[in-house]
C-alpha cells in the first residue's frame, strides 16, 4: 500500500523559480472567463434605487419609473455586460418592485425576496450535484450583496425595515444605506445613523462588515465600518460647479454634489462596494451564505454526515437507499395499478359472461313458452275440430229426425207418427229400446235439450219438439 510521508518543511529557494507568476496566471484565467456580480436593491418605490445604480455604474440602466400600484412584491432581475479595460463584468441588478407599497405590509413583502435568493442558491446547488456538471462556466446568479434603502425620516428604522433585514441577514450580505440623504441635515444625520446602528444591534441584525483581516485593506475597511450606514445621494444630471461639470442635484439654495465627500457618502459606498470589497462579497456569498443554505437543504432532505468512526461516504449510501426506496415505491405503485387493471378486466369479463348466460336462458325460456303456447293452440284446435265434428254429426242426426217427424205429422195421427218416429228414432238410436214403451223411449231419446222456455213456444218450434221436453202422460 502506498506510504505517504507528508512533512511540510519550509525551504528556501536557491534562485528564481518563477511561480510568483501564479496569481497572474490565475487572474488572467478569470479575466478570460469573466466575472459575475449580482446586486439586490430593496427599498420603497421612489426612494432612489434606480438613480443610485445609474450613478454607481455611470450609465443609464433604467428608462422608466416604477409604478406604485403593484399588487404584490415581485423581483425583477436585469443583466448587463459591462466592460472596463480588459475586465468583463456580468452585472445583474435585481429590483424588489412594489416593496413597501402595499397597504398590508405582512410577510408577503419579504417572502418573495427570500424565495428569489433561495432559488438562486438552489440552482447552483442543483448544478453542483449533477453528475455531469460544468461549474466553471456556470453563470452565477446568486445575490452577492443586498443594498437596503432606508427612508430618511431622521427618527428610526421602520418595523418593516427591521423585519426584512432580520429575515435576510443569514442569506445575503446586507449593506444598509440611507437614501436621499440630502433631505437630512448633518446633525440629524449623525443622530439618525447612531439610532439605526443601535437598533440593528439590539435586534440582532447581522449586516455585512468590511473585512479587516487583510492588512492591506484592514485600515480603510475599519474606518468605513464606522461610517455605516452610508448616507447617499444619487444623480445622473450634471451641474457646472466652478469650471467643472459634476454630478449633482441643483436646488435654489445650493448644489448637492454626489462625489463630494462632505456632502454625502456616495464615494465611500462606491469604494467599498466596487473598488475594495467586490471580491470579498462574492467569496462570502459562496463560502458562508451558500454553504449554510446547502447544509440546511441537505439536512432537510435527510442526509447527514458520518460520525468519525462509521462508514465513509454516507452521502452516497443515503442516496443509494433513497433511490432504492423511491424505485421500490414506484414499482409497488405500478404493481398495484396493474393488479387493479387485471381485476377490472376479470370483473368485466365475468359480468359479460353472466349477461350472456342470462340472455341465453331467456331465449330458452321464451322458446319453451312459445312451444307451450303452440301446443296449447294445437290442442284447442283439435278440441275445436272435435266439437265441430260432433256438432256436425248431431246436426245430421237432428236433420234426419226432423225430416222423419215432418213426414209423420203430415199423414196420420200421432200414433203412426209415433211408430214411425219410434222406428226412426229407434233406427236412429242404437240403444235397442223396445217399441212398447215409445213414450219412454222418446223421453229417453238422446235428443238436444229444449231451447224454448214455454210449452206454447215449444209446440211452435219444430226442432224443439223432438227435443227433450218433459213429456207427461195425457199430453198428446
Amino acid at each position, binding site marked *: 500500500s*502506498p506510504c505517504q510521508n507528508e512533512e511540510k518543511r519550509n525551504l528556501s529557494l536557491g534562485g*528564481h523559480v*518563477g*511561480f510568483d507568476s501564479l*496569481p497572474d496566471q490565475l487572474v488572467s484565467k478569470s479575466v*478570460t472567463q469573466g466575472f459575475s456580480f449580482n446586486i439586490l436593491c430593496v427599498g420603497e418605490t421612489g426612494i432612489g434605487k434606480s438613480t443610485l445604480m445609474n450613478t454607481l455604474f455611470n450609465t443609464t440602466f433604467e428608462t422608466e419609473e416604477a409604478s406604485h400600484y403593484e399588487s404584490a412584491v415581485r423581483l425583477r432581475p436585469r443583466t448587463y455586460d*459591462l466592460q472596463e479595460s480588459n475586465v468583463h463584468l456580468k452585472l445583474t441588478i435585481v429590483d424588489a418592485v412594489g416593496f413597501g407599497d402595499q397597504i398590508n405590509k405582512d410577510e408577503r413583502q419579504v417572502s418573495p425576496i427570500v424565495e428569489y435568493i433561495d432559488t438562486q442558491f438552489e440552482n447552483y446547488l442543483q448544478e453542483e450535484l449533477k453528475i455531469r456538471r460544468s461549474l466553471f462556466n456556470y453563470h452565477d446568479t446568486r445575490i452577492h450583496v443586498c443594498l437596503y434603502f432606508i427612508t430618511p425620516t431622521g427618527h428610526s428604522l421602520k418595523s418593516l425595515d427591521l423585519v426584512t433585514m432580520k429575515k435576510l441577514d443569514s442569506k445575503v450580505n446586507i449593506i444598509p444605506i440611507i437614501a436621499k440623504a440630502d433631505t437630512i441635515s448633518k446633525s440629524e444625520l449623525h443622530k439618525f445613523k447612531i439610532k439605526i446602528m443601535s437598533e440593528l444591534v439590539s435586534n440582532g441584525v447581522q449586516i455585512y462588515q468590511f473585512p479587516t483581516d487583510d492588512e492591506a485593506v484592514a485600515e480603510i475597511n475599519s474606518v468605513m465600518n464606522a461610517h455605516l450606514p452610508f448616507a447617499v445621494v444619487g444623480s445622473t444630471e450634471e451641474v457646472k460647479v466652478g469650471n467643472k461639470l459634476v454630478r449633482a442635484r441643483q436646488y435654489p439654495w445650493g448644489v448637492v454634489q454626489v462625489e463630494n465627500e462632505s456632502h454625502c457618502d456616495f464615494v465611500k459606498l462606491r469604494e467599498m462596494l466596487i473598488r475594495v470589497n467586490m471580491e470579498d462579497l462574492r467569496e462570502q456569498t459562496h463560502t458562508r451564505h451558500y454553504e449554510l443554505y446547502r447544509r440546511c437543504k441537505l439536512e432537510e432532505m435527510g442526509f447527514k454526515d458520518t460520525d468519525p468512526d462509521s462508514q465513509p461516504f454516507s452521502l452516497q449510501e443515503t442516496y443509494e437507499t433513497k433511490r432504492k426506496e423511491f424505485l421500490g415505491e414506484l414499482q409497488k405503485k405500478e404493481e398495484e395499478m396493474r393488479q387493479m387493471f387485471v381485476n377490472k378486466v376479470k370483473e368485466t369479463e365475468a359480468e359479460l359472461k353472466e349477461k350472456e348466460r342470462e340472455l341465453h336462458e331467456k331465449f330458452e325460456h321464451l322458446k319453451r313458452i312459445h312451444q307451450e303456447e303452440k301446443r296449447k293452440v294445437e290442442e284447442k284446435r283439435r278440441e275445436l275440430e272435435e266439437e265441430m265434428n260432433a256438432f256436425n254429426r248431431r246436426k245430421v242426426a237432428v236433420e234426419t229426425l226432423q225430416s222423419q217427424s215432418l213426414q209423420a205429422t203430415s199423414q196420420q195421427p200421432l200414433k203412426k207418427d209415433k211408430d214411425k218416429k219410434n222406428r226412426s228414432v229407434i233406427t236412429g238410436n242404437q240403444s235397442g229400446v223396445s217399441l212398447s214403451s215409445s213414450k219412454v223411449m222418446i223421453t229417453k231419446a238422446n235428443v238436444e235439450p229444449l231451447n224454448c222456455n214455454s210449452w206454447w213456444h215449444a209446440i211452435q218450434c219444430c226442432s224443439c219438439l223432438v227435443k227433450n221436453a218433459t213429456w207427461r202422460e195425457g199430453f198428446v
Partner: protein
Amino acid sequence: PHAGPVESKNEAAMSELVPEPRQKPVVPMKPVGINANLLGYIGIDTIIEQMRKKTMKTGFDFNIMVVGQSGLGKSTLVNTLFKSQVSRKSSGWNREEKIPKTVEIKAIGHVIEEGGVKMKLTVIDTPGFGDQINNENCWEPIEKYINEQYEKFLKEEVNIARKKRIPDTRVHCCLYFISPTGHSLRPLDLEFMKHLSKVVNIIPVIAKADTMTLEEKTEFKQRVRKELEVNGIEFYPQKEFDEDLEDKTENDKIRQESMPFAVVGSDKEYQVNGKRVLGRKTPWGIIEVENLTHCEFALLRDFVIRTHLQDLKEVTHNIHYETYRAKRLNDNGGLPPMTVETEENHESNL
C-alpha cells in the same frame, strides 16, 4: 409568437428590456452589453487586484509526480526545477537504499515562498517503477494512488458541513521520464502512458539528454512524437481542451515542436564566463542546464511553472476530477432526488 419551440419563446422573453409583469422570479435575461468606458471610471477592473490579493493570502497547492525507472535523474530534475532540495532523496533517504520490490508511492510536502506567493509543493515519487524483471501492471499502484486522491477530494466535497478550503492532494502533473535510448519508446512507456493519460496530465520528458547529439535528439523526439500519436496517447496539453484559437496555436507549437522536452538536471553550480550556473561538468565541457542551446530544461521549467501551472491545476480539477466524479456517482446509482428526469420518465410510463 407562442407557437414556436420552448427555447425560442424563452429567448424572446429574455431579450426584452422592459418585461411584462411576471409572477415568479425568473432567470436573469440575456445580458445587454454596455461599454462602461463611456462615462468615466467605475473601478470594475480593480477586481483583478482584489482577487490577486486574496489568492496570495490563501496560497497555492501544487502536486507533481515523477515516474520513471531508477537512475534516470528524476530527483535531480525536480530539485533543479524548484531550485531546492525537494526530492525524496534529499529529505533523509539513503542513496544506497535498496530498490523496492514493488512500486511504492512516496509523497513529500514542502512550503516554498517567492515574491510573496506561498506554495505548498508536494513531490510524489514512485520508486520501483519499471525496475522489476516482470513489470506487468506496475502502473496500477500509481493509478490507484491518483484515484485515491480524487476520492478523498470527492468525499470532502460531498460532506454536508464542508471545509472552507478543501485540501487538494490531487496529482496536477505527472512527469514521465523516457530513457534516452535513441531508438523508440519501450512497451512499458507506451502501456503506462496509455493507461494514465486518461486520469492525469502527463508530460513526457526525455531524461539525461546530454547523452544525445543535437541530430540524435531531434530524430528521437520526432520518433517519440510519432509513436505517441500512433498509439493515441494524449499528453498535456491535450488537444481537446484548447479553449480558443489563441490557446490552440500556442499549444500546437509546443505539442508539435518542443515536446517531449529533452532535459538535463543538476543541482551543482559552476563558474562559466564569470557567471554561476547550474551544470554538469564533464571532461569535454560544462553542460549548462539553463542554456537553451544545451538542453531544454528552461523550456520545461517555464512551461510547467511560469505559464501553465494554473492551467495544469484547472484541467485536473475541471476535467480529470469531474470525469472521476461522474463515473463514481454513476456507478453508485446516481443522485435520484436531484435529477428530475428519472421522475418524469416514470410518471409518463405510469
